[in-house]
């Protein structure tokens, strides 16, 4: 027995020495080769950052033709010129990745505030079982809480989930089949699988009435990307909960940055059922994390318009400069609470064709039926603008009001053509802010009019409140059924 004990002690000493040798001479090289994500933490430390922005591709992706290609985190830094701001960005990251990055920030760090990207799609089965997951998990092994030599052993033994493409596909499909979709209204499909299959079977037809495979594929893709309901057992929630617990332990200000999704397209392509699911998931996250001490949820979900999304034929959170600036500005507003002295306003001008009327709340009823009005004089509509997106936030006390979106074209001095669109199908909440988005075509009447006005109108006794009205004109490439090839802006 004595011999056993001596050998065990010798083995322990040997492992201690091996760990020391590895950490001193080999660890950095391995990190560079197998876990470059950890270098992001080292960089933030080296820069003595006080604010850290954790993001995925949404932070760094920009349009090929853009002159200002800065990241969201760089725009955010503009608001706090005297607070050192850094970022940790890794494509396809999600809450678990962020948790690993955060827990590797040294205890004596200068970091005070962490802004963590919260991507709605990352809760979906397709992202959870993405084929990018295995390489991502492999990157995290060297960041485990064990001594570096042990972590390297775990890497050598592939101690992370390795799933084949077939397995991942099968798991995703199982969720599509088995996760029920529950609506407060009648809906003929029980799950995403049925919904997607039926949509694919029926197909979408273009303006000429022909079956359009691209458009059909896009509609199905939106259904599969957003057609889910976050439930308490969603694995991402545990990771976000871990981030909350870690932030509290480390005394950080925690900001969850709920990213903007292309709600305009989701609504235009699929409609109210998908919007309901997106809103429900958004509400779930706000409800779960928005009321926690020390946690701020920045809600960007519906802030970026279709025109500001780079990828028009896929669901991503990749924004053009305007989109990135909107997100950065919104986060900056939240961070102002932590750094009121250091906050500096940043002015930037949006592109032509984009009109935002601010977040001042306006009440519309029979005494004051008109909301903010966009007035466009003759010839102000650019020839390449073929669609117009109108989005706003509305709060209704009940559903008795008669609020409509109005597009008024003055075709002659005494001839006004007005088209009204009911907003009620989109405003589903009572007593809470809800958002609506409308995708309209710029028709010849509007194009040839002496003047065009776009506004929300509520002539009824029952009041509604309105804010964040946003009108954006967009060119033809965004038309459904046409492969979106972003043009130079």
């Amino acid at each position, binding site marked *: 027995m004595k011999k056993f004990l001596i050998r065990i002690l010798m083995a322990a000493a040997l492992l201690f020495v091996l760990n020391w040798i*590895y950490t001193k001479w080999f660890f950095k090289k*391995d990190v560079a080769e197998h876990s470059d994500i950890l270098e992001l933490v080292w960089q933030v430390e080296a820069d003595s950052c006080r604010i850290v922005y954790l993001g995925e591709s949404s932070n760094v992706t920009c349009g090929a033709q853009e002159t200002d290609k800065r990241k969201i985190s760089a725009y955010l830094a503009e608001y706090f010129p005297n607070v050192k701001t850094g970022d940790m960005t890794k494509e396809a990251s999600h809450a678990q990745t962020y948790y690993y990055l955060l827990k590797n920030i040294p205890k004596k760090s200068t970091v005070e505030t962490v802004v963590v990207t919260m991507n709605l799609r990352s809760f979906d089965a397709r992202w959870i079982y993405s084929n990018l997951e295995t390489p991502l998990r492999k990157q995290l092994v060297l960041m485990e809480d064990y001594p570096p030599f042990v972590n390297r052993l775990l890497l*050598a033994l592939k101690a992370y989930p390795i799933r084949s493409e077939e397995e991942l596909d099968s798991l995703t499909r199982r969720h599509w089949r088995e996760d029920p979709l529950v609506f407060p209204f009648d809906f003929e499909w029980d799950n995403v699988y049925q919904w997607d299959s039926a949509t694919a079977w029926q197909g979408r037809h273009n303006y000429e009435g022909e079956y359009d495979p691209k458009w059909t594929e896009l509609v199905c893709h939106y259904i599969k990307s957003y057609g889910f309901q976050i439930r308490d057992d969603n694995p991402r929630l545990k990771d976000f909960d871990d981030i909350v617990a870690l932030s509290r332990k480390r005394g950080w200000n925690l900001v969850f940055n709920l990213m903007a999704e292309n709600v305009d397209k989701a609504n235009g392509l699929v409609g109210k059922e998908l919007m309901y699911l997106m809103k429900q998931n958004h509400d779930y996250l706000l409800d779960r994390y928005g009321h926690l001490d020390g946690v701020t949820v920045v809600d960007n979900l519906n802030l970026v318009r279709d025109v500001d999304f780079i990828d028009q034929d896929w669901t991503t959170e990749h924004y053009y400069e305007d989109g990135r600036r909107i997100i950065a500005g919104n986060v900056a507003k939240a961070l102002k609470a932590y750094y009121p002295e250091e906050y500096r306003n940043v002015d930037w001008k949006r592109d032509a064709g984009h009109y935002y009327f601010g977040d001042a709340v306006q009440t519309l009823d029979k005494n004051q039926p008109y909301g903010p009005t966009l007035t466009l004089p003759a010839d102000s509509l650019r020839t390449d603008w073929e669609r117009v997106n109108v989005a706003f936030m509305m709060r209704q006390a009940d559903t008795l009001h008669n609020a409509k979106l109005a597009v008024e074209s003055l075709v002659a001095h005494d001839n006004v053509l007005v088209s009204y669109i009911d907003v009620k199908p989109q405003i589903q909440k009572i007593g809470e802010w809800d958002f609506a988005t409308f995708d309209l075509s710029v028709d010849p009447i509007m194009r040839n009019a002496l003047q065009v006005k776009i506004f929300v109108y509520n002539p009824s006794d029952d009041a509604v409140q309105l804010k964040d009205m946003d009108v954006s004109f967009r060119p033809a490439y965004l038309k459904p059924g046409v492969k979106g090839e972003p043009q130079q802006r």
Partner: protein
Amino acid sequence: MVFNSIEFLIFLPIVVALFYLLPQKLRWVMLLAASCVFYMWFVPKYILILLVTIIIDFSAGILMENYADRPKLKKTFLIISIVSTLAVLMVFEYLNFLTENLSLLLAQMGIEKRWVTHIILPIGLSFHTFQSMSYVIEVYRGHQKAERHFGYYSLYVMFFPQLVTGPIERPGNLLRQLHEKKELHYENISKGMRLIIYGFFIKMVVADNLGAYVDKVYSAPSSYNSWSVMLAMAFYSFQIYCDFFGYSTIALGSAKLMGFDISDNFRTPYLAKSIAEFWHRWHISLSTWFRDYVYIPLGGSRVKFGRWAFNIMVVFVLSGIWHGAAWTFLFWGFAHGLLHIIEKALRNRFPEKEPKSKWIGYGLDALRIAKTFVLVTLFWVMFRASDFANMKDMFVSAVTNFGGGDSLGVKPEMWLYLGLFILSDLLLFNSRFDQWCDNKPILLRWFIYGLLIFMTVVCSSVNSFPFIYFQF
């Protein structure tokens, strides 16, 4: 469960600790349960296939012994057992191949009827069915008493260290040991650990790192220059050796920790001077299985040359098919058999003469070793290629692409790993790592342990390469 996984590194110490802590009468229960867990870690339902073969062969053994005085009935039980065991192997390993080829044949005859099956092969089926068959044959021959304890017999077939890729054990060795009471000895733990450390090193550092280069070339042979293709062929010889030898060594070590001695499967095969010698050194448990149960019953070598050649071809073609249901394996077995026959014929025609000096003798031996290695390496191309087209691409690229194509770009450290392995293999000629260490000074031993552990952890490939023989 695979050996090179964190699960196994947790599983093994627990099993070993329980083994020594439990009283002898409960050890088989624990080992059997552990073996079930080990096997079911892959695909749980496949254990039912194993259960079927265990029940058939266990019953056959008892029946053969009970009716020992009625030879015809005894033989019937043997045939039933072997046919049913082979039927299981046939369905799971060969049915896809047969239906696919039959469909192709029918298509050639203008009959467009495709009924190709897609049955997934349970891991290690070829190994444990052969182990099971060796038991019934040994009982039939009267060399082995029938096991009347179902638990011990099940454990003989399922003993986890050698369950999925052998060595294919004989009841006379393993079954006997399973009944023996094993005491905790420092010697066993020490030797077992040495074997495990060495096995991990050659699998994870040498085989897996070589695998990356081999895969690159085999996936697109024509895009590499001839030197790189030849290098990849040679690399594969070492990859498959280190992969299988590594697994077998870990298996030996794992069993040794509990005091069990299972058979050596390799004995420096690339130092063989002929194909015949190669097969005495490579996958020894399979070679001896075929020798004892196929070759000798067919007449072995005590027959005329023509009959002997036939016996050899049968053994080698069967050995090829045993490795997998594909024409490339069959071709590989055939090639080995043919070369074996040619070598013998040449030896008969030109008997070896005593060299004039020992240095000439060494030189001739070196040439013979090199010749055998080159031939075995060329044959491995058939074994590794995904199909005949891939095999052809490899051979064509190896001789026609000297001027163009990419270079394999082997990292310098790869040569270090391979060099260290070759050195160790030479040092271990006709020996084993645990035995070799025995008479070395403690400081040197611990330096070697440290080096092997360090290299296994730091230099192992981070890409996933399953054990090659898992597919059989």
